[in-house]
């Protein structure tokens, strides 16, 4: 008996509330609307309205005339458009693979293979860099990566990078940005994944052990499938944040004395359109491209992982 019937175990793993299969009342009454109203107002003001405004700008020109897809065609033809999207594709692939593999892996190890005290300390330590704001973490890395001031300068020099300019060669940028993103963001996700693993009842793990599954088998065939939704959730958020990367390359651009392209990411290109060319319409068109990209990725992940499926009627 090597394979485990995951589907059989799944309902038992669901959080409290669903397990007792309480049916939701058909209507929530006024209280429900009242509770969400605060969020809805903010969502409309800072989410939906700006998106609508961006869509309006992207379809018009600076004289307010309807341009159809003209703005989109214009920005795609910009010589910086494809390189910028190429940059974030490489970055996203590296970042998402590393994030999913390492944060889930670390959470599994912290959950099952470590004494509770040590595990708690490590989770805290992993989380600490995430408490720094994005800009502060970039500054930390600027010092870490400049061989003339870095505490590990000898290591960077030994790796063949004689000076800061060599470290910031265009080919190294995705790796550097992934390092920064991982250092600042992965710790928080490890804690979340750890929490997700905590939701799996001990009986399930116990049953797996009795059936002869070792730690790796348990992780691969029981724990990871059972936190699939959390992984999808993390991927959606990390993807959205990744496509919008701005602060990190922007700061590197200044700190590297201009050796990093000022339009490395699409968001920087949109920024250049809006605030240097004064072309808010073109900038809006680029932001719509990013929105569509983010929605498409989220759509695929949501439908594939069943993230929004409600288990009420099981």
């Amino acid at each position, binding site marked *: 008996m090597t394979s485990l019937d995951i589907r059989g175990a799944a309902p038992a793993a669901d959080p409290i509330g669903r397990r007792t299969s309480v049916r939701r009342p058909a209507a929530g009454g006024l209280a429900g609307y009242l509770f969400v109203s605060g969020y809805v107002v903010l969502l409309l003001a800072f989410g939906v309205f700006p998106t609508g405004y961006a869509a309006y700008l992207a379809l018009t020109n*600076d004289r307010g005339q*309807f341009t159809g897809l003209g703005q989109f065609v214009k920005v795609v033809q910009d010589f910086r458009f494809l390189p910028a999207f190429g940059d974030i594709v490489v970055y996203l692939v590296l970042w998402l693979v590393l994030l999913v593999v390492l944060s889930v892996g670390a959470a599994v190890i912290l959950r099952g293979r470590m004494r509770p005290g040590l595990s708690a300390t490590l989770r805290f330590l992993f989380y600490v860099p995430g408490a720094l704001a994005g800009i502060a973490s970039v500054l930390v890395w600027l010092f870490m990566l400049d061989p*003339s001031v870095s505490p590990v300068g000898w290591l960077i020099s030994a790796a063949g990078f004689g000076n*800061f300019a060599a470290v910031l*060669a265009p080919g190294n940028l995705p790796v550097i940005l992934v390092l920064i993103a991982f250092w600042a963001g992965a710790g928080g996700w490890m804690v979340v994944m750890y929490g997700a693993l905590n939701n799996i009842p001990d009986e399930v793990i116990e049953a797996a052990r009795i059936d002869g599954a070792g730690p790796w088998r348990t992780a691969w065939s029981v724990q990871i499938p059972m936190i699939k939704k959390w992984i999808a959730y993390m991927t959606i958020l990390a993807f959205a944040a990744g496509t919008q990367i701005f602060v990190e390359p922007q700061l590197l651009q200044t700190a590297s*004395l201009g050796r990093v392209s000022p339009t490395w990411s699409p968001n920087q290109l949109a920024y250049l359109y809006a605030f*240097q*060319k004064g072309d808010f319409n*073109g900038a809006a068109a680029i932001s719509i491209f990013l929105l569509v990209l983010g929605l498409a990725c989220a759509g695929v992940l949501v439908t594939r992982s069943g993230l929004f499926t409600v288990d009420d009627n099981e």
Partner: protein
Amino acid sequence: MKSLASGWTGASQRRLGRAGLAVVAAALLAALAGCASAEQTTEASNDAFKPVTQDASSTITVWADSTRLDAVKAYQSSHPQAKLNVVTYDGGADGSTYLQTKVQLFDRTGSGWPDVVFAPPVDLTWASRPTTPGKVPFAAPLDGLVDQKLLDGFATGSLAPCQFNGHTYCMRNDLAQVVLWYNKKLMDKFGYTVPTTWEQYEALGEKVASEHPGYFIGSVGDTNAHESYFWASQCPAFNLVKDSTLRVALQDPKCTRMATLLDKLIANKSVSTEAFFSAGYAKEHGSKTLMAFGPSWYGQYLFNNAFKVPAGEIAASNPLSWEGESQTFTGNVGGGTWVVSSHSKNLKAATDLVTWLTTSNDYQSGAPTYPAYSPAAEAWLKNPANSDYFADDITPAFTTAAGQVWTGWSNVKFSDQTAWSSVVLPALTEGKTLTETLPAWQQAISDEAKSDGYTVVNQ
């Protein structure tokens, strides 16, 4: 899955599908065939400048970089009645577009403009025109506000970046003419003579490489190094032929001669590809810098502040010439301007401040950089505080170079540094030669120029 359509026949569903497709196709066609142009409006307004309602008692807001902060403070202490609100900002250093970004936003919100700003010349290319149609250009024309006699007193050509459509939109604070800096103590010790031509400079580079390896006679690694070398070589990299036609011809012999010369010196390691202003260079090689072909502010800001070379060692010499050319030209690296906002409620106070900052000997004779206003420049050179640090009199080199800045390197709407620092410098760091990189550099400049509405000529 039950739906409202469940009672319909298959045929009507298909018909509906076809109708839907037709609607989508029609919408797409309409969208594509559409409609107005997506290009930005570029019409220049020729309307005469109309000041806003003036209030002589209002406080004026001044944006200055940290270097110029003392100047504004000096004005405040000599004019205690002036009401100033001073804000420090990056002053456009390293191609920053902070001012442009903010003005774009102020133009949209209709308020918030500073009254007076310190800005690099490149900012005048947008500040003298409306940011969007119907807006008032940010910079106020100063020719009606400032005495013409004062404007005539500026060094020849130094107000060129301020001028557009027959008006003068800024007053130049300082000149940044490029001279040949050298460490006199080291040159004497090694027994070298200071070169006067590029051919001698090249020969000296070969000599240094073999006799004193580890010493440098220049660097191409800074974001503005091309403004020293290629500008002085009269390379048509940013040459405005007409108002909107830009000549970017990097295969011109005047570009390739400089690329070939530098490639040789980079290869023998007498010219560095690391930036003078990087932390690494100052630490490792600052005291081993024999020469630097760079702007007039290198003396204080590079040798004194960054490299910490002791006083009495550094001297300046005339810009280098090419053998067989009767006229010598040099480059220019920066040099700020003062701009008055056309939205200012107190133009009188703003203009008074700008005039004092650029032309008053009280301040300019002790200014950190070489004044563009000629009478102030004379006073500056006579001030011992400006020359004490140097081994020799810098007056001949500075005054000669001030009149030799080549005018074929135009002030264009985009920073001339972006392509150089993000395309050429990484390639040099990778070990490519300048000659190999010229086509990529030309392409990058041309692309940028085209996206800013220039017609580009590559011949």
